[in-house]
């Protein structure tokens, strides 16, 4: 068993947990109850309270919103990346959309679409589609000219080219886009439930907070963190499965061509605006 690498990664989280546990033990502060109390509350709420239905509501919204954003963002991104006319026409619009914080749409969406599950999924979709779309476009653009020349020279029909050349070629950046989208989606999931919603994790922490159930508020907040972390771990697993070739390649061949837009740049520029 490779214990060493696991230990090397886990010692700090374990230490932080232990410090928190010790530091808050026997705490009499109203706002910072002992961590054990918070965890016990979390457990109790999950087993007996309504927290499971809140969790399920939130999870369903974020997954549907992200799935929709992935399908639309990747599809449109492939088309825009491939077709010059589309790229030129959509350029200014995309820059505008990228620079507009999605949170600003919350009141409008609630006003026009109401407070059910639909508007929340739409909001999550709206916020997370941009990084996926923009990353897909730049992923397609970054595919080397030799690859295009080859598939043209061997007369690969376009549906096959799209499926086996363009999509896998852009996949590393598409997944980087989804990773950025995920963090935006978690924020929007919570925000959308804080504004006018009878259920969901956002509503749970809002309700507990405004009625001074401090342990419950902390428990809900921790649960949101766990949801976000769990989803990103899931995404990492998917990425590892899909991008084996990309990560295993020797470093000297990792960028055989000049990279036009480094994925990290895009991540940052999108990550800031929520």
């Amino acid at each position, binding site marked *: 068993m490779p214990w060493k690498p696991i230990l090397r990664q886990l010692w700090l989280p374990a230490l932080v947990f232990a410090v928190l546990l010790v530091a808050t033990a026997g705490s009499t502060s109203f706002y910072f109850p002992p961590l054990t109390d918070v965890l016990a509350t979390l457990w109790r709420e999950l087993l007996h309270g309504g927290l499971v239905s809140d969790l399920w509501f939130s999870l369903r919204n974020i997954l549907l919103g992200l799935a929709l954003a992935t399908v639309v963002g990747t599809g449109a991104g492939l088309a825009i990346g491939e077709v010059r006319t589309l790229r030129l026409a959509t350029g200014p619009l995309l820059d505008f959309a990228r620079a507009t914080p999605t949170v600003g749409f919350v009141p409008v969406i609630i006003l026009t679409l109401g407070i059910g599950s639909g508007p929340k999924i739409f909001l999550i979709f709206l916020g997370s589609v941009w990084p996926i779309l923009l990353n897909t476009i730049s992923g397609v653009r970054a595919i*080397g*000219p*030799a*690859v295009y*020349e*080859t598939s*043209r*020279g*061997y*007369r*690969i*029909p376009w549906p*096959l080219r799209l499926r*086996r*050349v363009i999509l*896998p*070629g852009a*996949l590393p950046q598409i997944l980087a886009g989804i990773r950025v989208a995920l963090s935006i989606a978690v924020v929007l999931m919570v925000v959308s439930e804080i504004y006018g919603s009878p259920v969901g994790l956002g509503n749970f922490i809002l309700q507990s907070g405004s009625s001074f159930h401090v342990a419950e508020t902390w428990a809900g907040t921790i649960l949101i963190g766990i949801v976000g972390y769990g989803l990103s771990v899931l995404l990492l697993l998917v990425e590892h499965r899909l991008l084996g*070739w*990309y990560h*295993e*390649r*020797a470093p000297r*061949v990792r960028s*055989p*061509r000049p990279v036009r837009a480094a994925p990290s740049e895009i991540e940052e520029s999108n990550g800031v605006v929520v």
Partner: protein
Amino acid sequence: MTRGSSLYVEDLCMAFGQGPQEHRVLDGLSLRVDPGEAVCVVGPSGAGKTTLLRCLAGLARPTSGQVRYGELPLIEPHDDIAVVSQDYRGSLLPWMRVWDNVAFPLQGRGVKKAVRKSRALECLEAVGLQDVGDKYPWQLSGGMQQRVAIARGLAYDAPVLLMDEPFGSVDAQSRFDLEDLTLRLRRQLGITVVVVTHDIDEAVYLGDRVIVLGGRPTAVLETLTVPLGTDRDQLSTRADPRFAELRTRVLALIRGEKLPTGPEVAHQ
């Protein structure tokens, strides 16, 4: 056992840009390659060799003049013509296994997977690569990757194989092996081979004819016939006085000099 048709290049001109910025690369180039022939196009770098090859492959359209395959004007890539590019690293797809890369053009033709795979493995064996079908291209050395690219050209089963500086970025030893591989495949399969290169020795070693490009803009300076037969090997062929004579002549043509009278100078 030759297949396919002749390639004709007639009065080919290629210019980039327009108006006063127009940069004329190729000017009034004409040549002909017959089925089963091995022709090397040699010229200094920047002479538009790759442009010429892209026109032959139907990947680029000439500004004027035309390229024909038999009677057919080549305005787009043709099923009978396979291209092996210099940039093997860029042209092999890193997300496909080696066999899949070789078989990919056949998938475009709708060939079933099992047939595709066995054909791919067959072609890999023909270029001396057994047991690497399930690896990824980036797990192989440069020379091996270029073999994979050649195998892909073979799997395409085209009578005409165009090669653009095919061995420019592999080590010297692999380069000799790949040159011999090209000669052998061409003998065995009766395919037409057009190799574009800046390496004069390679051009003389591989070609039945050597077409020397030069000048600005580029035109055909001369076409030389290589009287060395089809059975060549690295040691005796390169030691042949006729080989030395030819390479000296090509070098002189490219440099625009008269034939040297003193001891011959290495070209690199």
